[in-house]
């Protein structure tokens, strides 16, 4: 994992390597005076070119029928706990603290090594420059710099944290059911965020807010559309003046389409997750590795803080896979070879997932 010895092939990798100079664990400097924290999924950090910038509001659109958004939330929260960052979790369940028991703990995905060694072997070959990008990024492992303070960990979804792990951690849990309006939740967020104020000096700690299913129908506020919007607006304004990131999931199908759009405009980073239907023969023929996918992740918007230039991603749809049934990885969709009519322009996207193996380039 010699990220430093790797030849720099693109501006993307330069940003990452310069970011290692940050001293505070779990924080990383990005362009335009922003600071990133990790999403808890190494591949997602790479796709978003660093992670979630502090002060941003991340919205995740849920699949109405599947709990894939929980995967994102869990990893986001676990990563915060590993870095000892204060955490506020709100959900529409009666006992939100119970959710903490399901958070995955960090593990080492052994496959990383085999991945890298295979990439190492490829390096020995003479490879035309056009193809260099196909294996370049897999070595850009942000984690495992010194084993202890990694920017982003791999989380073992089958191994929850020990109970005693939570003692001494700053974790607050809020049930969205408790209050008839969102103002109490907003007050909780305000007091939480006041611990991580933004001042121009160096940042010592970053807070994480995770809100699950904000517009769930069992909450009293779910039919007060304007109130929820004004909650989001206030939340965003408070985030801007503090060192924290909020991830809010919501189900767009529960909102009127126009309100769903308003929510989406409110987001700095907008993601959506979708389950994969079990037996979609057509899709199975179209995509390679269909059997291993558990869902799809779409990236609709990447935060543009302090800049006006939108980021053009190499691909916007990624498949969510569980490596060894434990580790969450995101991969680019690879079109299976179809006779004659493959979209050759999409061939180039085969590389952008960090976990591209040699086998995935089967065009």
């Amino acid at each position, binding site marked *: 994992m010699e990220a430093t010895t790797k030849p720099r092939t693109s501006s993307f990798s330069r940003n990452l390597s310069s970011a290692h100079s940050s001293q505070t664990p779990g924080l990383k400097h990005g362009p335009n005076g922003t600071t990133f924290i990790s999403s808890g999924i190494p591949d997602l950090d790479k796709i978003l070119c660093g992670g979630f910038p502090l002060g941003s509001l991340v919205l995740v659109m849920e699949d109405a029928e599947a709990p894939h958004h929980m995967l994102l939330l869990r990893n986001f929260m676990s990563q915060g706990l590993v870095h000892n960052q204060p955490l506020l979790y709100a959900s529409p369940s009666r006992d939100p603290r119970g959710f903490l028991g399901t958070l995955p703990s960090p593990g080492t995905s052994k496959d990383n090594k085999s991945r890298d060694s295979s990439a190492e072997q490829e390096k020995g070959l003479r490879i035309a420059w056009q193809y260099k990008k196909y294996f370049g990024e897999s070595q850009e492992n942000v984690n495992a710099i010194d084993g202890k303070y990694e920017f982003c960990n791999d989380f073992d979804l089958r191994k929850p944290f020990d109970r005693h792990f939570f003692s001494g951690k700053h974790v607050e849990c809020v049930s969205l059911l408790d209050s008839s309006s969102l103002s109490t939740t907003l007050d909780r967020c305000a007091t939480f965020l006041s611990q991580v104020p933004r001042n121009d000096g160096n940042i010592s700690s970053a807070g994480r807010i995770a809100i699950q299913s904000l517009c769930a129908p069992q909450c009293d506020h779910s039919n007060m559309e304007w109130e929820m919007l004004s909650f989001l607006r206030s939340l965003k304004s408070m985030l801007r003046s503090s060192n924290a990131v909020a991830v809010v999931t919501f189900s767009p199908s529960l909102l009127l389409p126009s309100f769903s759009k308003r929510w989406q*405009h409110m987001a700095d980073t907008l993601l959506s997750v979708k389950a994969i239907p079990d037996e979609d023969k057509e899709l199975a023929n179209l995509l390679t590795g269909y059997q291993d996918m558990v869902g799809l992740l779409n990236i609709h918007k990447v935060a543009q803080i302090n800049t006006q230039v939108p980021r053009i991603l190499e691909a916007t749809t990624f498949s969510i896979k569980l490596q060894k049934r434990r580790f969450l990885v995101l991969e680019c969709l690879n079109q299976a070879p179809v006779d004659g009519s493959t979209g050759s322009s999409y061939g180039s996207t085969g590389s952008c997932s960090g976990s591209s193996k040699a086998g995935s380039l089967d065009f």
Partner: protein
Amino acid sequence: MSRMTSNLLDEAIGLDDSTSLSPLVGRLLLVEDCVETSGAFVLHHLLKRAFSSPHSSNAVIFIAFSQSFVHYERVLRKLGCNLAAQRDSHRFFFLDMLTVGCSDRSGKETGEGVLVGLYCKIQRAVSALIQENKRHVTIVIDDIPLLEVAANGSSNHVLDFLHYCHTLTSEIGGSIIALSHEDVYLDIERPLILQMEYLADVLIKVGPLATGIAKDVHGQLTVLNKPVGGLEENLRNRVHNFQFYIKENVPFWLLTRRSCPTSSIY
């Protein structure tokens, strides 16, 4: 900005018209974008234009609902325009509605109250500017749907507010630039967006590239310039289509539609 860098957008809006001193006087310019492609860069560009023009009588009142001052300042600085200095020289009034509007939740102000308060601030700023003989006042609103949220969803109040602002600027010969989101209003009865589009003299629609993701194009832009005056040749609406590529330090590149991108970079 030299004549060379005046780009297609300025041309389409009529900003490069050297015959008239300030081509946007009394006009309302509406920018519509969608989730996929933000139209904020048009605001940044027009903001920069307002300050880089030779007339020192230009002033801007910026009503910011969506971003903080730091964001705009950093973006504009990269475009070569120092907002903090402009603010100190009383040419730039920044009304921070993002943080200020939310922090005083205790009063439980009604939606109408917020807008009335906001209008009073604008009026005060305008009269202060007129005393300093800065007559070309531009009011920039970023953005209308958030203004609606602040008004608790009362689109009537928002429309009233826009009408008041429009009256104010047309009296003194200023202009209004507003950002709105097209997709928010697509599926409902759309009195607000229709009235805004009716009011607007220049309509700029920003959207993603119709053909999908491209590596070197950020999106496409349609400019509808409604005719001014009653002259025969001016009676037609002028519609322009471009594709654009945004950069940090130059305004942005515009590529004309049916031509090779590399040869037509402005």
